């Protein structure tokens, strides 16, 4: 069977611009969450978010380019440029025809939508910016990546809320493994820290006031973030033949639906997705050392996820490290799985498991080793990364350290 390796990664997040900055902050247990500064907060009860404050679109794109690219697309393109550069891959015409672009994004160009709807509804303007449609469409990041790099294979955006990235990466992985393509640019991008989106989340009453504290008994909910993480995937033989550096091997993808509740998670759906990823990978549960949890810091998710992990791993659950890096980069919705895959790859590759920060009080219903507050040196030959979306859509990726 064809094998699939990750040969490049690029990141824009609240933890910084670039793979190194993101991973260094994760290892240092540094939070990117803070007071909202990039939009006016008058009328918002949510006061904190994981804004990518060091990202400046005007420093990277010309005025003309910005007029066609929403912030979400800019972040996707910035992360892609880094991933392709790190991979050292050249997309010649033959490879470009055999390269897929599959990007997860839940909400598309939300800044464009918010800015332009404000013009209509609040300022009573008769018209919106002429490029509103191509900027806000959810497939804009995928299309711009394909255009920027001349990638002509199968290309689309996956929108499954918080699981978008994992579904995207999983599809790209399966397409290479099946022989449909030979390479893929995949991952996710989300930039929905707008007044309208934050108001919508406020309404659900699940947002934290002061910090994101996954698995901690005193948690008060989730904190939204923004960012993008993009990976270059290649068929292993081709990657090795060109002497690429391999960050890790993607070996399994499991996806399930709860067919239950539109917002409440299900133990069964989550457990089936983890099992499906292990089965797809041909991986025994006992091989897994680390699970990058969905870990949103809502009561419903954290307890259900911990119970699902116990159901899948049995006694081995007590030997697993399970951390939620959302405590640092926030919940980046459609980009979450991709940012977390970078965290997971960094654990495989560097032997340093990123922590769950802000863990202040143990919760008896989350009694796993959540790697509280400090990164840990550990050998991680195999890992899972979980994403569980509103709508009951679950997607889990299994990765293995690459053996030459």
């Amino acid at each position, binding site marked *: 069977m064809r094998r699939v390796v990750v040969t490049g990664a690029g990141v824009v997040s609240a933890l910084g611009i670039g793979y190194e900055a993101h991973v260094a902050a994760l290892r240092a247990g540094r939070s990117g969450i803070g007071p909202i500064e990039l939009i006016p907060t008058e009328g918002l*009860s949510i006061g904190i978010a994981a804004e990518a404050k060091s990202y400046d679109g005007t420093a990277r794109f010309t005025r003309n380019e910005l007029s066609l690219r929403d912030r979400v697309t800019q972040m996707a393109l910035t992360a892609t440029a880094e991933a392709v550069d790190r991979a050292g891959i050249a997309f010649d015409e033959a490879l470009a025809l055999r390269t897929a672009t599959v990007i997860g994004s839940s909400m598309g160009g939300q800044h464009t939508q918010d800015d332009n709807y404000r013009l209509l509804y609040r300022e009573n303007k008769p018209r919106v910016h002429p490029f509103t449609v191509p900027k806000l469409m959810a497939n804009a990041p995928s299309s711009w990546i394909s255009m920027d790099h001349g990638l002509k294979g199968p290309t689309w955006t996956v929108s499954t809320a918080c699981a978008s990235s994992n579904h995207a990466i999983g599809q790209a992985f399966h397409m290479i493994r099946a022989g449909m393509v030979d390479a893929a640019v995949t991952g996710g991008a989300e930039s929905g820290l707008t007044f309208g989106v934050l108001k919508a989340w406020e*309404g659900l009453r*699940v947002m934290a006031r002061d910090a994101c504290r996954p698995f901690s008994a005193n948690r*008060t*909910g989730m904190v939204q973030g923004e960012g993008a993480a993009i990976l270059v995937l290649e068929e292993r033989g081709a990657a090795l033949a060109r002497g690429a550096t391999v960050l890790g091997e993607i070996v399994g993808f499991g996806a399930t639906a709860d067919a239950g509740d539109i*917002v*409440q998670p299900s133990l069964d759906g989550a457990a089936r997705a983890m099992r499906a990823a292990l089965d797809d990978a041909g991986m025994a549960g006992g091989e897994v050392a680390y699970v990058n949890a969905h870990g949103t810091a*809502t*009561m*419903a998710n954290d307890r259900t996820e911990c119970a699902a992990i116990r159901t899948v791993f049995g006694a081995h659950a007590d030997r697993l490290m399970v951390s939620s890096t959302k405590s640092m980069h926030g919940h980046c919705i459609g980009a979450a799985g991709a940012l977390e895959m970078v965290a997971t790859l960094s654990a495989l590759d560097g032997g340093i498991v990123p922590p769950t920060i802000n863990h202040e009080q143990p919760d008896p219903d989350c009694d796993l080793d959540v790697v509280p507050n400090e990164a840990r040196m550990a050998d991680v030959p195999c890992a899972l990364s979980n994403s569980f979306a509103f709508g009951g859509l679950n997607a889990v990726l299994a990765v293995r350290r690459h053996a030459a």
Partner: protein
Amino acid sequence: MTDDEIRQQVRAIIAEQAMIDVEQVSSDSTMDDLGLDSLGLVEIVFAIEEQFGVSVPYNANEPNSDEFDISTVRAVEDGVIRLVAEKD
């Protein structure tokens, strides 16, 4: 608005969300008794905020927080009366 009027309106909001007659809502009922789940509660909080022009400090992750008691219908009524008084 008198306290009794507030109580009646709160009960009407809860009854509508629970899809029962307002007479069936007793002061001692819990949200569970009325078949209301977390989404139902969020909708009740929304309706209260809209109707009374107040902001209800309720977080689904801290249902037992003492900031806004939702343990019974009476507790919700009392909370709304307090919020309305604080507003005026």
